[in-house]
C-alpha cells in the first residue's frame, strides 16, 4: 500500500512528473528558440511561470456552472498523474497492474473530456469553438491511437499488461524491429502529437486565431493545473512509445540507463522539431488525415502484426 502511495505521489507520480515535465517543457522552449535562432528562456522559466500562476486571482464567471469550471482542470490533472504513474511504473520498475493499456486509454480520454467540459462551461465564444475542435480531434486521433496500441498487444500474445510487453521484447527483440512495429511507431508519433495538441494538430488551442481556445477563461491556479497537466503529457507519452516499441529502459548497466534516456529524449526532440517545422492544419484536414491515412496505415500494421511480421 505504502509502496503504491509512493509511486503515486513521489517517484513516477506527482512530484517527479511535475518537476520533470517542467524541465521537458523548458527543453521544448529552448529547442524551439534555437530553431528560430534565439537564445531562449532560462532553465527555471517554467517553474517561475507556474509559481507565479499560483499567486494570481481565479476569476469565475457569474451565470455559468462554475463548479464544472473549477473541477475540470483538477480532474484532468489527476488523470494525467495517474497515467504518468502507470507508465512510469513500468518504465522505471518494470511492474504493471494488469490492465494497464486499457486503463491508459480511458484516462487519456478523461483528460480530453474534462478539457471539453471546462471550456464549454464558460460560455465564451472562443472557448466553445476550442471545445468543439477538441472534440473533433478526439474523434479523429482516438481510432488511430488504439490501433497503434493494438500492435504491441498482438505481438506480446494478446496481453494488455505493459510488463508482459516489456518481457516479450526482452526475449524476442524490440517490436520496432518488425515491419508492423515501425509503421505503428511512426503513426504513434503522429498520434501523440495530436493527443498533446502540438502543431500541426494544435487546432483546438490555436493561439493566433482562437487565443488558446479552451484555456482562454482560466486564470491563476486553475491555469497552472492545465499547464502542469500539459507538460506532464510530455513525460508519459514518449515513455509509453519507448515501452511499447523500443524495449523500455533497463537498469542493468550505466550504458543501458543512458540508452533509455536517449531513446526518450530522441522522441521528445523529434516531436519538438515536427512542431517547429509544420504549419497548423485546419480541423477538417486533420480529420481527413487521420481517417484516410493514419488509421488505415495503423490498420495495415495491425494486420501485419496478426500475420506475424
Amino acid at each position, binding site marked *: 500500500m505504502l509502496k503504491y502511495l509512493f509511486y503515486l505521489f513521489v517517484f513516477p507520480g506527482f512530484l517527479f512528473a511535475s518537476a520533470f515535465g517542467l524541465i521537458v517543457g523548458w527543453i521544448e522552449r529552448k529547442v524551439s528558440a534555437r530553431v528560430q535562432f534565439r*537564445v531562449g528562456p*532560462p532553465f527555471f522559466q517554467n517553474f*517561475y511561470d507556474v509559481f507565479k500562476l499560483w*499567486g*494570481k486571482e481565479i*476569476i469565475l464567471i457569474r451565470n455559468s456552472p462554475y463548479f464544472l469550471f473549477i473541477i475540470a482542470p483538477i480532474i484532468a490533472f489527476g488523470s494525467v498523474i495517474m497515467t504518468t504513474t502507470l507508465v512510469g511504473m513500468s518504465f522505471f520498475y518494470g511492474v504493471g497492474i494488469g490492465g494497464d493499456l486499457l486503463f491508459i486509454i480511458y484516462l487519456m480520454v478523461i483528460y480530453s473530456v474534462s478539457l471539453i467540459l471546462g471550456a464549454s462551461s464558460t460560455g465564451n465564444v472562443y472557448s466553445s469553438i476550442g471545445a468543439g475542435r477538441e472534440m473533433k480531434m478526439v474523434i479523429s486521433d482516438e481510432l488511430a491511437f488504439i490501433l497503434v496500441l493494438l500492435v504491441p498487444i498482438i505481438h506480446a500474445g494478446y496481453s494488455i499488461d505493459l510488463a508482459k510487453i516489456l518481457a516479450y521484447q526482452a526475449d524476442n527483440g524490440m517490436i520496432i524491429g518488425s515491419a508492423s512495429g515501425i509503421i505503428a511507431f511512426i503513426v504513434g508519433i503522429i498520434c501523440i502529437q495530436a493527443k498533446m495538441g502540438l502543431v500541426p494538430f494544435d487546432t483546438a488551442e490555436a493561439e493566433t486565431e482562437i487565443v*488558446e481556445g479552451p484555456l*482562454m477563461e482560466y486564470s*491563476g491556479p486553475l491555469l497552472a493545473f492545465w499547464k502542469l497537466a500539459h507538460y506532464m503529457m510530455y513525460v508519459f507519452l514518449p515513455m509509453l512509445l519507448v515501452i511499447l516499441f523500443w524495449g523500455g529502459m533497463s537498469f542493468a548497466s550505466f550504458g543501458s540507463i543512458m540508452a533509455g534516456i536517449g531513446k526518450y529524449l530522441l522522441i521528445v526532440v523529434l516531436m519538438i522539431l515536427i512542431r517547429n517545422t509544420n504549419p497548423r492544419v485546419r480541423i477538417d484536414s486533420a480529420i481527413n488525415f487521420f481517417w484516410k491515412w493514419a488509421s488505415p496505415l495503423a490498420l495495415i500494421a495491425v494486420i501485419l502484426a496478426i500475420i506475424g511480421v
Partner: protein
Amino acid sequence: MGLYNKIIKKSIWVFHVSASPCNNCDIEILDLLTPGYDIERFGIKLVGSARHADVLLVTGVVSYKVAPRLKQLYEQAAKPLFVVGIGTCTTGGATFKTSYNKAGIPLEKVIPVNAYVPGCPPKPEAMIDGVVKLLGTLK
C-alpha cells in the same frame, strides 16, 4: 510578498491592448515580440487572453467608445496586474492632442497606470527599458 515579487519579475506575460492608437505603436510592440529582440530570455511572453496577463500594454488615446471597454478589460484581468502606457498618446495625446474624442489623456484617467513609455512611437529598446524599470520598483 518578497519571494513572490522576485518570481513575478522573471515571468511576465503581456497582453496587448490597442485603445484607439494610430497603429504605429502596435507595430513597434509586435516588433518587440519578434525573434530579433527575443524577450523570452527575460521570461516575457505574449498571451492572447487578458485572464492570463500580468502586464497590459496599452497604446493610444483612449476614445470615449473604447474607455468603458478598457475599464472592463482591466477589471477582468487577474490581479496582481501592471499597466504600462506605450507611446506619447497615453501621456500627452501626440497626433491626437487636439482631437475631440479623447477620454484617456493621460491614461490614468481611465485605469491605474504603473509606468509610461513615451515616444511616438517608442523604440522596442525603450519599451524593454520601461518594463525593466517598472520591475525594478517591485520589492
